[in-house]
């Protein structure tokens, strides 16, 4: 019996008696990169991408930033036919949802994130966003009702992004809107048309690491200069989460959009207590600079944000981990696997030290509160 099977059966036993699980971060992959989008592109754009030989079957980052083992996707997650990991909805349902007894999964396309952020031009990003969304709605959501989708938007044009939200946002399995970030903090007015459309359709904003931050101009930047490799860059990605929590709260955007919620995927969450201590303390003294912030910053966080659990960092001592999460509050975290990526966390080995109540919140209830699932 393999280790993997042991974990799966252990998980199954535990889940039948205790937990429902919703996975807030799963990455479907277009099987043939941009070529998979061809049927969903207007004819002229199809011709344009073909002539550019724009296959784009991965992140296409410089070698300095490539994963040291060659790929961010788990090669064990390939389909039995050898197709790329997470490129078949049927296989993803079997390998993730059925195997780990997960009741639903929020899909977001990692490749779309990079392209729509800056790797495609503004005009290209508008047609690509629509094509990505049509592909996943048509070929994935129809396969299984447990598959939900964070529709991607062309952030480079917030008005076009809002139109795309209104075009696809009423689909019953579209549960969130994925905004691939550009180099503007999320509290900036630039994003307001997008937030307005999300709030109108009662869809939370979903942000996720795009994998190209601080690599290409126009992406969110982390510190000065250039990172010296994948690991060095990876470890400080939480900076982007920190900056944007800070910006959304202190800009007053949450007062401007009082029914809008946010899910931050893959930025970690253990940094939140120190950020909140500092935000609250400084706001108490300098509140008059941002009088549109009506209450202590930490209150907004608990009301309006969720942070995915993966990649789960933390101390070895489970008691210390319990204490850190108690300090933050388990109401702001939601379970995620990041399937099929290398740094995944599966439910059977995630946060087992928490109380039953806390696990119910983290593994399902918090997501159900925010997502239309």
């Amino acid at each position, binding site marked *: 019996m393999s280790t993997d099977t042991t974990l799966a059966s252990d998980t199954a036993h535990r889940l039948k008696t205790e937990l429902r699980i919703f996975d807030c971060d799963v990455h479907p992959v277009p099987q043939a990169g941009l070529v998979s989008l061809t049927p969903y592109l207007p004819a002229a754009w199809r011709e344009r991408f073909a002539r550019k030989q724009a296959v784009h079957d991965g992140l296409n980052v410089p070698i300095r930033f490539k994963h040291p083992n060659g790929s961010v996707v788990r090669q064990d997650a390939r389909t039995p036919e050898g197709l790329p990991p997470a490129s078949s909805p049927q296989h993803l349902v079997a390998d993730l949802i059925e195997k780990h007894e997960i009741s639903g999964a929020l899909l977001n396309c990692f490749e779309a994130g990079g392209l729509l952020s800056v790797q495609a031009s503004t005009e290209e990003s508008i047609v690509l966003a629509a094509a990505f969304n049509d592909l996943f709605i048509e070929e994935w959501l129809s396969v299984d009702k447990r598959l939900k989708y964070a529709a991607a938007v062309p952030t480079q044009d917030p008005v076009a992004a809002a139109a795309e939200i209104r075009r696809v946002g009423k689909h019953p399995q579209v549960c969130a809107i994925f905004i691939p970030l550009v180099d503007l903090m999320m509290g900036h*007015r630039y994003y307001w048309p997008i937030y307005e459309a999300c709030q109108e359709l009662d869809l939370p904003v979903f942000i996720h690491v795009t994998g190209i931050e601080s690599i290409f101009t126009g992406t969110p930047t982390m510190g000065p200069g250039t990172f010296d490799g994948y690991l060095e860059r990876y470890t400080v990605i939480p900076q982007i989460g920190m900056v944007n929590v800070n910006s959304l709260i202190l*800009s*007053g*955007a949450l*007062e*401007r959009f009082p029914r809008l919620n946010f899910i931050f995927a893959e930025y970690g969450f253990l940094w939140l207590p120190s950020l909140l201590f500092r935000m609250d*303390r400084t*706001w*108490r*003294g*300098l*509140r*008059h600079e941002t*009088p*549109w912030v009506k*209450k*202590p910053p930490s209150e907004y966080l608990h009301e309006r944000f969720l942070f995915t659990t993966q990649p789960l960092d933390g101390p070895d001592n489970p008691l210390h981990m319990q204490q850190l999460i108690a300090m933050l509050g388990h109401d702001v975290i939601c379970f995620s696997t990041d399937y099929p990526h290398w740094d995944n966390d599966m439910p059977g080995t995630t946060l087992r030290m928490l109380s039953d109540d806390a696990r119910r919140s983290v593994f399902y209830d918090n997501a159900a509160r925010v997502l239309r699932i």
Partner: protein
Amino acid sequence: MAQETTPTRVGKSSDFEPGAIALVEINGREIGIIRLQSGELRAVLNYCPHKGAPICKGFIGGVWQSSGPGDLSFDASQDVLVCPWHGFEFSLDSGRELCWNKRSRLRFYPVHEAEGDVFVSA
């Protein structure tokens, strides 16, 4: 205890103008005398409940208000004592922090005016 309740003359009524803070020492305590916009006087211990700063060396401010991002108004009618260290704001009406529900508050002492003079019991 008896000493605390004996009123001490701290000056003439005309010495204390709205918006100014006059520091006096009574029985080893440094106290700020502040005339509110209503004409009422406050005697405030010169000690910020946050981190012990000499809060009466701060300034009197009003309240900044807003209906949303970018909209700003200033309500000068409220008397607020702003600490010179971390900027925490305390209402001179209640002694409490403006925007934070903490139990700690400014310490006020009884103050009254009689025949053109001001007396503080501290």
